[in-house]
Structure formats: structure tokens, C-alpha cells
């Protein structure tokens, strides 16, 4: 009798749970907006990348021309944009991810209150917003004696003349990397803290019995393998953040293009072709290259962190 009741409950629940039409209605608002503003734009970008399109006349199909000229004739792209972007993305993406893991791990070795305070301090720059990011760093590295870094160096007599950090191709890329790492610890960092705190402590005990000897081995053999899913999420977030903040070069230096193209990344190249030259087809091809780069970097993170069943 009792069994029959449970079966009834399950059947009724199953019917209510499995109604296809209701499911679609509940999904619809998100799916429609996702399609309109994420899926379709990506498809349009791919489509436009095979055309010549000046934003006014109908797009002309040109096949692979855009991609061919991007990789064979666009000197600026091959000589500056691509190497800059790769260097920047490797340091800020995977590098930022490793850095946030190390910071997250150290933070979790502390009691709750100092942990909260320190992680808040590390996360705060992720909340200040792009406007404050550019403004504060422009003030810090300003190329005059009132710039914070210059004032410091001048006062100690280490330099005689203020250095125009942001307008100098030697310094700008490094400054961009510092700024990006500063401002993009983000939710990947929080996710990693949560992941480390979630690792079952019995695993550590068992591992010490099994003969691991130090904290480093503990991290390599227990912590990281136990939190691979969080590591992957954190890594993807770090990579996406890195590409999202990558427009900052011209804003920091106040010059576009940046001196010697040193701060020019792929996002600036897209902007340049789309909004200054109105070569939308070409800009779309660059966008597709960008999306593929983000995807490849994330795949790389996936290969490192996904569980192999």
C-alpha cells in the first residue's frame, strides 16, 4: 500500500516534471535573449567575415579574402597585434589563473577573519569598474612630476627627468599587464577559494599516512586534483577577463594607435576597422579570430583541468 502511494507520487511528479510545452515556456525568455544577443551575433560575425561590408551597402561575398589578407597582408596585425595579444593573453590568462590559485591557496591557510579581510582587499579592484581602472593608473603612471611613480623616483633622486611611462613603448605593455592582473582577479579567484575550502580534509590525512611529505606535494596531489572543476571555471573566467580588459592600451596612453603599436591588442584592431574604417567584414574576421583564440585558451585550460574518466 505504502509502495503504491510512493509510485503514485512519483508518477504524478513525473507528469508535472516532464511536460515539454511548460519546459519550453519557462526556458523561452532566457533562450530567446541568449539567441538574439549572443548566439546570432556570433553567427553574423562568422557570416560577415566572408564578405566585404561597409555598413551601408549590402555585403558582398568575398570568400576567405578577409582571412587571407589578415594573415598575409596586414603587417600591423602580424607584426604587432598578434604577438602583443598572445604575450598579453598568456601572461594575464594562464598566468593570472596560476596567480589567483596561489593567492587563493595562501588565503585559505589563514583563519576566517584575516582570510575574509585579505580576500576582500584582493577582490576589491575587480569591483571598481573600467573608468576608475584607467583613471587611477593614468594618475599613478602620469608622465610628469606629479605622477605618483615619477614623483617617487624624482624625490629619491633616481631619475632627473620624469619618464613618460604611458607613452613609451618600452613600459606600456608591462603597465598594461600590471593593470590587468590588478583589476581582474575577479570571480575566478573567489571560486578557487571556495574550491580549496571544500576539499575534504580527510583526504589530506589519508595522504600524509600514504607518505606525502610537504605542503607542496599536498597541493599537487590532493588540493588541485580535488578541485579540478573549480580550477577550470576559474581558468575560463581568468582568460575571458584578460581578453575583456584588453582594450585598455590606447585609453591608458591617451594615444591611438599606441606608441609603436606597443599597447595595441586584437580588440583595438577590431574597433579600428569596425568604427574608424567601417570595414565591417574585415573587422568581423578579426572578431572570429579573437573568439577562436579565447576558445583555444579555454580548451587548453580544459585539457589541464578536466577529469579524465
Amino acid at each position: 500500500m505504502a509502495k503504491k502511494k510512493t509510485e503514485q507520487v512519483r508518477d504524478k511528479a513525473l507528469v508535472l516534471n516532464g511536460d515539454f510545452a511548460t519546459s519550453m515556456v519557462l526556458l523561452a525568455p532566457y533562450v530567446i535573449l541568449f539567441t538574439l544577443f549572443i548566439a546570432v551575433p556570433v553567427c553574423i560575425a562568422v557570416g560577415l567575415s566572408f564578405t566585404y561590408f561597409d555598413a551601408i551597402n549590402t555585403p558582398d561575398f568575398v570568400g576567405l579574402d578577409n582571412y587571407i589578407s589578415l594573415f598575409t597582408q596586414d603587417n600591423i596585425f602580424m607584426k604587432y597585434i598578434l604577438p602583443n595579444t598572445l604575450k598579453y593573453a598568456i601572461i594575464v590568462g594562464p598566468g593570472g589563473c596560476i596567480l589567483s590559485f596561489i593567492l587563493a591557496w595562501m588565503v585559505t591557510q589563514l583563519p576566517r577573519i584575516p582570510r575574509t579581510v585579505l580576500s576582500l582587499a584582493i577582490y576589491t579592484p575587480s569591483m571598481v569598474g573600467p573608468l576608475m581602472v584607467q583613471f587611477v593608473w593614468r594618475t599613478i603612471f602620469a608622465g610628469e612630476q606629479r605622477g605618483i611613480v615619477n614623483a617617487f623616483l624624482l624625490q629619491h633622486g633616481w631619475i632627473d627627468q620624469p619618464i613618460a611611462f604611458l607613452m613609451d613603448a618600452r613600459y606600456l605593455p608591462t603597465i598594461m599587464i600590471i593593470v590587468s592582473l590588478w583589476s581582474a582577479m575577479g570571480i575566478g579567484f573567489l571560486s578557487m577559494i571556495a574550491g580549496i575550502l571544500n576539499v575534504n580534509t580527510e583526504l589530506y590525512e589519508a595522504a600524509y599516512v600514504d607518505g606525502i611529505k610537504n605542503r607542496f606535494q599536498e597541493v599537487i596531489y590532493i588540493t588541485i586534483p580535488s578541485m579540478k572543476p573549480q580550477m577550470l571555471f576559474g581558468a575560463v573566467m581568468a582568460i575571458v577577463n584578460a581578453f575583456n580588459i584588453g582594450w585598455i592600451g590606447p585609453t591608458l596612453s591617451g594615444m591611438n594607435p599606441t606608441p609603436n603599436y606597443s599597447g595595441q591588442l586584437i580588440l583595438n584592431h577590431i574597433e579600428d576597422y569596425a568604427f574608424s574604417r567601417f570595414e565591417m567584414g574585415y573587422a568581423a574576421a578579426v572578431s572570429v579570430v579573437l573568439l577562436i583564440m579565447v576558445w583555444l585558451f579555454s580548451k587548453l585550460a580544459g585539457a589541464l583541468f578536466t577529469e579524465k574518466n
Partner: protein
Amino acid sequence: MKRRKRSQLKVNPSGFEPGQIKFYLILIPIAIFMIVPVIFMINQAFKPLGELYAFPPTLFVKEPTLDNFEKLMALSGSTGVPMLRYLVNSVFITLVTVVINILVTVSCAFTLSKKRKYYITRVFFELNQLALMFVTVAVAVPRYLIIVKLGMINTWGAHIFPLIATPVGLFLMKQFIDEIPDALIDAAYVDGAGNFTVIRKIIIPMTKPAIATVAILTFQTAWGATEASNNFITLDVMRTIYYYLNSLATNNAVAAAGMVAAGSLILFIPNLIMFIASQSKVMSTMSHSGIK
């Protein structure tokens, strides 16, 4: 011996131990590096003109004043739109975006997590996972074309709708709802509850941490968004404060230094307060954030 091994377990310790000193020695300087630019910015906002341009520059303000805020509020855009209007626009757009975003995300995440899985819903979740890697700037042009086609140029919808579907938000919410026992929801259905009641009475109360997290992330995105004001809106009166301050900072960086600092601070404070108020909720959401 066994006892000593146990004391080696130092993750999430309950108190201070000498072994922690090395972590403090590394973390405190890093935390200072992270926080000093923010403190500097906050101080800039309260500096009178003389201190802003003083040499040597100072970190802390000596004679704090509200001048910068007053000047900023008295300012109006090139077309005579007062500052306050931009602020009101931003508040309105952000609040509406956050509310719609939460409702849409919860409803979708609930269906993906607790309803019968169809092939198409599985494929959609995979797609959403792929879209975690989505970089908005890459599709600025196609998005513009879509807004034009939909006739949404110069509408509030152009501000709001592109920010509703957030892959990260849906992902976190779905992972969190996965943890709610199915039996609880089945029991509610049997007792005669409809989908709407289940969402309202079970899902929303039980996913408060995830809702808080998604709300914060959406708030940050919407509050700092410039895409719509730059590309989809041509009427100054419908633009956001972020857009306005951004143009002020770009066109007038030196003269407007104090005002931009004050503006940045106004934009930053809501983010900070929301995060501090719900940081434990955010952390509990993040513990379900793994990608399987």
C-alpha cells in the same frame, strides 16, 4: 605521531599558528598593492584643487572637501542634460536589468536542472557553457545590426535586453539548483503546486545565495555598461552616468581630475556595499561553480 600529522592540516584553521606568518608576509604586501590605488582614488575625490595638483603628490587628503561632488552634480552634458538625469537613468536601467535578469535566469536554471531532460535542453546547457567564453566586444557590430533590425535604437530596451542572458549567471544558478533535493520539488507538485508556486515557494527561498551572487554580477555589468550608450542610443537624455563620466574623463582628463574621481567613487560604492553585505552568500555559490 598521528596527532602531529593532524596538526599539519592547515586549510581553514581556527586560530593563529606560527606557520601562518609566512603567508601573512606575502599576502599583506599584495593586499596593500591591490588596495592602495583604491584608497588613493577615494582620497582624490575629497581633495581640494590645490592638493590635487600638489607636488609631491599625497596619498591621503589633508583638508577634505565635498567640492568635487558639488561641481560634478552641478555639471551638465554638452546638450544641457543635467548630471542627475544620467544618474537616474543608470539607477533605473540597473534595477530593471537586475530584476528581469534574476527572474529569467531562475526560471531557465530551474527548468534545466529539475525538469525532465530533453535532448534540446541538454544541448542548450552545453551551448551556454561554451558561451562562458563569450567576449562581448567581439560582436559589437552584429549586436548593433540586431538592435537596428529590432527597431530598438533609442529605447530603454536597448540598454536592458542585451544584459539579460548572462551565461555565467545561468551556469552558477543551475549548479546551485542541482543541490536542491528532487524529492522536495516532487512533493510540492503532488500537493498541487504549479510551476510558478514551486519557483516562488521552494526555488527562490532555497537559492538565495545564488540569487545574491547573480544579482551582484549583473549589477556590476549593468552599472558599468557603456555599450548601449555608445552604440544603441543617440539621444543624450537616455544615456547613463557611466557613459557621461567616461567621456568627461577622456576629453577632459586633467581639468576634470577631481570630478572624475568623485564620479568613480559614486559608481564604486554600490558595488562595494553589495559585495560586502553578501560575501558569504557569494562564497557559498562559488563552491558549486565547478565545470564538470
